[in-house]
């Protein structure tokens, strides 16, 4: 995606400027370029959002344009887990285990209202986890119930931008700050 199409470039510049190192910057740039253009999502869907995720991979919306088409069934081969749908208390340990099984670097996209906050099941439900960030750290939130495939695509492009700004140091700091 072109730089001018995003509204918030200042914070990106700020992120770029902080914590960079002259020697490592070039290496980081090359590594990040490779990582962001081959994001392989895990086939993980619990509810309606999963169908919209499938629709994103289908011909109309076509994930493949951005290097995300390779859905992996095994968490060991996946880079990003798109939490598509409700997570209930029985599922939460399984989700945590899936996340732990993924190899670094790994990213999390919370797709849809259920994964963000519990969504339609926020009130009165005794079994729904109110937001997936109680279980695993989230990088990008995609709102909607369910979000359109375009929204998911935009979220994934935001994730690519996030990867662009990462350095070895910031990656380490991020992992250290999440004690899940």
């Amino acid at each position, binding site marked *: 995606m072109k730089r001018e199409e995003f509204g918030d470039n200042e914070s990106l510049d700020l992120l770029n400027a902080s914590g960079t190192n002259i020697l490592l910057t070039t290496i980081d740039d090359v590594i990040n370029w490779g990582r962001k253009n081959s994001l392989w999502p895990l086939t993980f869907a619990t509810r309606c959002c999963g169908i919209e995720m499938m629709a994103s991979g289908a011909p109309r919306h076509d994930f493949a344009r951005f290097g995300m088409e390779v859905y992996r069934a095994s968490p060991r081969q996946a880079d990003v887990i798109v939490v598509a749908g409700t997570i209930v208390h029985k599922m939460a340990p399984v989700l945590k285990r899936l996340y732990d099984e993924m190899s670094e670097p790994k990213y999390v996209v919370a797709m849809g209202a259920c994964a963000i906050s519990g969504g339609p099941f926020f009130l009165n439900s005794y079994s729904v986890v109110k937001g997936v960030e109680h279980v695993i750290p989230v990088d990008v939130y995609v709102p909607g119930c*369910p979000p359109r495939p375009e929204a998911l695509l935009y979220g994934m492009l935001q994730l690519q931008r996030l990867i662009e700004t990462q350095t070895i140091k910031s990656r380490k700091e991020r992992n250290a700050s999440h004690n899940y």
Partner: protein
Amino acid sequence: MEEEAIITTPDELQEYFINMGPQHPSTHGVLRLLVSLKGEMVKNIEPHVGYIHSGIEKMCESLTYPQIIHLTDRMDYISAHINNEAVCLNVEKALEVDIPDRIKVIRTIMSELTRIQSHQLWWACFGMDLGGLTCFFYGLRDREKILDIFEETCGGRMIVSYNCPGGLMYDIHPNFQKRVKDFIKYFRKILPEYDQLLTGNVIFHERSKGIGKLTKEDAISFGVTGPTARASGFSCDVRKHEPYSAYDRVQFKEILLSEGDTFSRYVVRIEEMWESMNIIEQLIDNIPEGPFAVKMKPIIKLPEGTYYQRVETARGELGVFVISDGNKNPYRVKFRSPNFSNLSVLNHIAKGFKIADLVAIGGSLDLIIPDIDR
């Protein structure tokens, strides 16, 4: 010597267990199957449900009737419109509201569009489960055309929330009739392509014919409904036996086959898409004039008593049972979901087949897991 070693291993030691799911692409969600195997043969399947149990039935008790619609949407999300219709019909039946013809006809058209898109998605996923990735692309390409119609009229792509007790949320879009007609014209040309891709495929025949046979008696005793039961010859179409909305004024065939194997379940769904198009064609040109919703009281209270309404979703018979104590919230709501009963038959029909056939059989049942767990 080696042969002897195999023979001397006792039978009970040869059995082992495999966990299929909760994260497994072919379970279409988070169903967990504890499969007991002997070699490659399936000996027993124990489904573990509850990985997506969100307590919808309990939540309904604290919501008003118009609010329940938004939860039934998310129960069987691929036939969301039909689920909503069940709740609305139940409320209307309890209040003895007379529903104008326009609403009935529009609801029927929308239900059939929902059925077509559900079967398209099923076809796409079933093909993909058996290794034909092309099906996925073709099926979802055509599904988007129906979603466009939904989006224009209802505002939502999949979770439409178009019904409400007493009618519809809003009137149909001026383009609705034209777009539906265009779609039918397009899909009548495309559907034979589905047959060319998968129905006549020799590899597909080998993997589906004679696999997972379900007899008519078993279908009845397990409470199996929908296309799965109709493939075994059990005539269970609610649209025929207990017509609701505008189904009493249209002509259509109930597809009945007798083999009851995976292939006939496949054929029933393909044929149902043709029948759905017939139903839509009969109605689309004569949508009567009139209001799109009946004026209801701002707070809907059902009189004391129990109410039951069943409809035919894309997967089978959905029943909504409401106990009311006269308040604005129901006292108890129970959904009789088609997928739960259809899942119960899985162990019975997949026993004795190979584990690869389990994927084919599970795919042919067309399970939606949030509808099982609710």
